[in-house]
């Protein structure tokens, strides 16, 4: 196995890769004018088993996005020749719905809203950690497959009914607080995928700021004690340096 000691945090996303044996290879396009950053991303993505191309300006990026079959686009907001938002807007106007994640140095709430309104599917302020980016890209790629419409989510013997709000593991009924239910629902929707703390904060709590202390960890450990305690096979896993994942370990 090759080692990339020059990629910081490499161990963390190696762990992420190991945690997801059923990971499928994605084709990614990185549109970023900072060559060092773009090349780093291409290398890091290929390190975890994905195929990534890079474009260094908006026009090239648009051309490649138009002809290539990509699963996810990673688009910097400020690009030479054509800015990221206009690039995504053009793609959407041409009916190309490839999920796009916007990277931006601006990172304020209204800026983020602008990005999502322009047709972006997710937004990550710079500087970002690669594990955060990877987790979000994988969720975006999977979103196409769509597990959103299912009314009953199942992971191993854990079962969550989105209509009746009932959760059971095996024969045992589990009582969850409303927020715990939403937390579990989000994790189960992304079964087998790493979900970061910020993703949870954004999607379960609808907050876009960084609480100074890691409050999410405590919520997770509470949830874990409800769904995993007393069972031989744990389902909710911590991926060190990245986040959490729910997965059926028995498979």
């Amino acid at each position: 196995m090759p080692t990339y000691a020059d990629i910081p945090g490499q161990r963390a996303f190696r762990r992420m890769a190991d945690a997801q044996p059923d990971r499928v290879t994605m084709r990614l396009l990185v549109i970023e004018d900072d060559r060092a950053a773009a090349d780093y991303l291409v290398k890091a993505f290929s390190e975890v088993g994905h195929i990534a191309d890079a474009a260094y300006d908006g026009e090239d990026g648009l051309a490649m996005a138009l002809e290539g079959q990509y699963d996810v686009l990673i688009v910097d907001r400020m690009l030479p020749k054509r800015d990221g938002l206009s690039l995504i807007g053009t793609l959407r106007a041409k009916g190309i719905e490839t999920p796009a994640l916007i990277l931006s140095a601006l990172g304020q709430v209204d800026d983020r809203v602008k990005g999502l309104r322009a047709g972006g599917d997710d937004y990550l302020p710079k500087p970002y950690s690669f594990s955060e980016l990877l987790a979000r890209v994988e969720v975006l790629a999977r979103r196409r497959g769509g597990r959103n419409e299912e009314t009953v989510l199942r992971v191993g013997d854990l079962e969550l009914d989105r209509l009746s709000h009932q959760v059971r593991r095996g024969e045992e009924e589990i009582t969850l607080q409303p927020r715990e239910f939403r937390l579990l629902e989000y994790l189960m929707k992304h079964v087998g995928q790493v979900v970061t703390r910020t993703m949870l904060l954004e999607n379960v709590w609808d907050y876009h700021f960084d609480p100074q202390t890691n409050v999410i960890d405590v919520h997770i450990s509470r949830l874990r004690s409800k769904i995993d305690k007393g069972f031989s096979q744990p389902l909710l896993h911590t991926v060190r340096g990245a986040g959490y994942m729910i997965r059926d370990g028995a498979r």
Partner: protein
Amino acid sequence: MTALGKLFRTTTFKLTLVYLTVFALFAAFLLGYFALNTRRLITEQITDTVNAEITGLSEQYRQGGIRRLVVVVDARARRPGSSLYIVTTFAGEALAGNVTALEPGILDNPGWTETVYRRLDEAEGPEHPEHQALVRVFQLPGGFRLLVGRDLDERERLYHIILGAGRWSIAIVIVLGLAGGLFVTRRVLRRVDAMTETTRTIMAGDLGERLPVAGTGDELDRLAENLNIMLERIEALMRGLKEVSDNIAHDLKTPLTRLRNRSEQALRTANSEAEYRAAIEATIEESDSLIATFNALLMIARAESGQARDDMSEFDAAEIAHDICELYEPLAEEKGIALMVEADTAAPVKGNRELVSQALANLVDNAIKYAEPHDKLVNGVAPEIVIRALNEGDRILLTVADRGPGIPESDRSRVIERFVRLEQSRSKPGSGLGLSLASAVARLHGGELTLEDNHPGLKTVIALPREGPVQMRDGAARQKESRR
């Protein structure tokens, strides 16, 4: 641009011109109408008199023949005045009258004519010019002709007097209007010039300068006052910006130096891959906390600059209190602290929900961070933190009250400043920006952050202006009571 050109270009002067033109046109129309009507009235009067006279004279002729007519006309013609008469034979030979030098052929056409004439008693010459007259020629039975008329001098004189008066008054109106306009314009212009002058000084960098206010309370004064308020705000912002950059320079350089030193040391002394790895991981950790600090600073700057005002909406502060409590409750419980909420049913606030949530989260985070551990409890006071969202008059108070060590009164205003951390808290994690952010958010919403004694402990209060009608204080209190 010349001074005069500048004068003519001002709005005030243009307005003066417009008003002047409208007024002058109106006056001209009015006077013209008046003059023409007067003239018409006089003409009508003349016609009536002449007709009456002709009727009278032809009656004389009918009763007494040409001889009598000649005698009557002769007598009348001798009277001084503006009445004109001629009686002629069929051949045109004058039998009686006081008129000569009529335009040729007048006597041949019976009916009304305007003509020139000279009176018989006036000698020919330049000192007696010909006059205008309105005459009627009447054919008498038997071939004689009778001409009766009136001099038009009076009518024309009156007409011209009115016209003249009109012209003069319009001229005076225009002159006075222009002068007044120029006077007012120059006054306004002088004040605007003074403002422009001040603005230039300000643009040149002297932010302490203020626009002159005349004290008349007019629209220019109001403008100047508002601009001064704006300048005040800009000056405060600039001061804040300078403060921020100074603080950033100071407080980001410290961890950056630490980061650099650590990397350098690793490069120099590390031998094994494990050691390098540990050094790199420490570097990443350090840069993460730097990024967090930087984000907090940006957030504060954004709140203070008022940019966040763009996405303000109405929301319920009580709901935020419940949400934040729910978010931090497991963390508090883990540390053996009871986290509770006391909130009114509705605490409407208009603002940036995200920022207010973060501000409250910072306060709760602080309270949990600085809570005394169990074994250090004094007087057996249970470690509890209460989040409150209550109506008080026209304000909403978002309060976080803890039983921690508190902050001495002398330090309270200081800790709100950026990066200030009291000695005893240096060992705890955090950027020292939590309270600064809460304070900036409160000010963004037109409120304030205050620190109070909780006997024992600390009470942090974010006071925000209430949105909507003011609720009765005791009504709110009763609601609170019932929920306890």
